[in-house]
């Protein structure tokens, strides 16, 4: 492979003061025609292009992105990766992704800093205890590692948690998935971009899609701010803006786009070496390699594309964080931001063909899409290349909202919505 990153390339470039590193991907301008065009240059879109080129031998493809790659929800999430979902279909989908994560840095020759530090989910009431035990059993039946922890075991695994029985929502137990963890979100976008670019995929930034051109019941191309691009296959991976693109094609989706917020603290020395999530009080926290606490807040309940959220949502999350971790009471928050997440009624994604030939949607990941990035790209590429879903994403078709065969994952989605 050209420009392979290794200890030798590092030494070689160190000798020239790191001034001769080559760009990791080309900044392409659109060609007149492509075999397939992916709309959306986030992790999922870039991964889709990567697997289309790698596994399905489609080299004449492009990713169009209205801003810069990885600048949407890929760069805004709290980087948590896990696969402990309740239903068989979800377990298959998310664990497929987790298995790819486990070898992704080697495959991409790009360090995505995947760290299997474990994810612990806390129970704060009797219903939580029952739900989490049920989910643990379901996970184990599906071959996903999961253990149920008592309050004492929670305390042992993460000593800074306040397990006192007299707090408002005491910790009654929890679950732990040890294979779960975090990764460096930007690196995922950049690694896939570099890998796709090497196989000839054009990555076109600052190119906003303005229209989907149809001829009867099939697509013919897209109108963009950089002109018309002809193509027979369009894969839409536009997250919060999926409905906007669907509207251009005259299609309706069962989505609502809502703000989801996150925040990071000032950097401190290592204090929490795992990820702790708590649905009931809505607080989850981990620590980045830079030392910042990475805190996820909840969604607002109204539709908005403003990439802001309400202050009371952040306040509620921090209240919960402070009760669970009194040690953080004097920490200052450094940054806060919002992303727009597209939420399905059943809190499961859509990776599907549509009623329009050549138009495919990968959307509805809601508050938890980052963890699925590699699996989502792989399965969406399969769906686009074969015009048929892979068996792992067959259940996540758009027709489930007509048939009623929903995949209700509100309990495992971790962010209440």
């Amino acid at each position, binding site marked *: 492979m050209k420009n392979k990153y290794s200890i030798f390339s590092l030494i070689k470039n160190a000798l020239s003061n790191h001034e001769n590193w080559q760009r990791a991907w080309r900044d392409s301008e659109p060609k007149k025609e492509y075999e397939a065009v992916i709309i959306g240059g986030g992790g999922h879109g870039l991964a889709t292009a990567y697997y289309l080129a790698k596994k399905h031998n489609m080299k004449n493809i492009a990713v169009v992105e209205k801003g810069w790659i990885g600048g949407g929800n890929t760069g805004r999430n709290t980087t948590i990766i896990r696969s402990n979902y309740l239903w068989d279909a979800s377990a298959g989908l998310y664990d497929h992704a987790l298995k790819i994560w486990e070898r992704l840095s080697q495959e991409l020759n790009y360090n995505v800093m995947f760290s299997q530090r474990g994810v612990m989910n806390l129970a704060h009431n009797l219903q939580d205890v029952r739900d989490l035990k049920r989910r643990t059993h379901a996970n184990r039946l599906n071959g996903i590692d999961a253990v149920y922890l008592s309050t004492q075991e929670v305390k042992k695994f993460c000593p800074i948690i306040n397990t006192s029985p007299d707090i408002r929502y005491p910790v009654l137990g929890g679950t732990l998935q040890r294979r779960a963890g975090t990764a460096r979100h930007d690196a995922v976008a950049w690694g896939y971009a570099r890998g796709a670019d090497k196989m000839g995929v054009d990555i076109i930034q600052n190119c906003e899609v303005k229209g989907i051109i149809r001829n009867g019941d099939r697509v013919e191309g897209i109108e963009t701010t950089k002109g018309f691009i002809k193509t027979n296959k369009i894969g839409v991976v536009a997250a919060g803006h999926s*409905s906007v693109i669907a509207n251009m094609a005259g299609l*309706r989706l069962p989505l609502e*786009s809502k703000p989801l917020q996150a925040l990071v603290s000032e950097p401190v020395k290592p204090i929490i070496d795992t990820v702790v999530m708590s649905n009931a009080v809505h607080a989850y926290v981990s620590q980045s390699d830079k030392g910042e606490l990475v805190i996820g807040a909840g969604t607002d*309940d109204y*539709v908005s594309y403003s990439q802001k959220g*309400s202050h009371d949502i952040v306040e509620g999350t921090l209240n919960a964080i402070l009760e669970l971790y009194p040690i953080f009471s004097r920490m200052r928050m450094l940054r806060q931001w919002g992303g727009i997440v597209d939420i399905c009624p059943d809190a499961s994604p859509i990776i599907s063909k549509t009623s329009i030939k050549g138009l495919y949607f990968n959307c509805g990941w809601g508050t938890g899409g980052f963890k699925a990035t590699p699996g989502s790209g792989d399965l969406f590429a399969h769906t686009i290349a074969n015009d048929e879903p892979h068996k792992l994403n067959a259940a996540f078709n758009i027709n489930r*909202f007509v048939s009623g065969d929903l995949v209700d994952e509100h309990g495992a989605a971790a962010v209440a919505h």
Partner: protein
Amino acid sequence: MFIINCPFCGEREQSEFKAGGEAHIIRPKQPTELSDDQWAEYLFMRKNIKGIQFERWNHAHGCRKWFNVVRDTSNDEIKAVYKMGEKPPVQ
């Protein structure tokens, strides 16, 4: 965060309200005669507009009454507020 002018109570912080989603979705008159496609359309499909949206809100921590709001979802600017049953303002 923004301020909503409740038609019954006046201007209050948005956190006092509960969003009720897209407005003017009409409940089917003959539910038994609906096809699966029509049910899906009624129950799940949403416009999810980026721009001017007509939506319902409930003053959950106030008068608890429902009303309609016209809001630009790209910047959360509220254009109009009107009561249930009233005709929506023309765009």
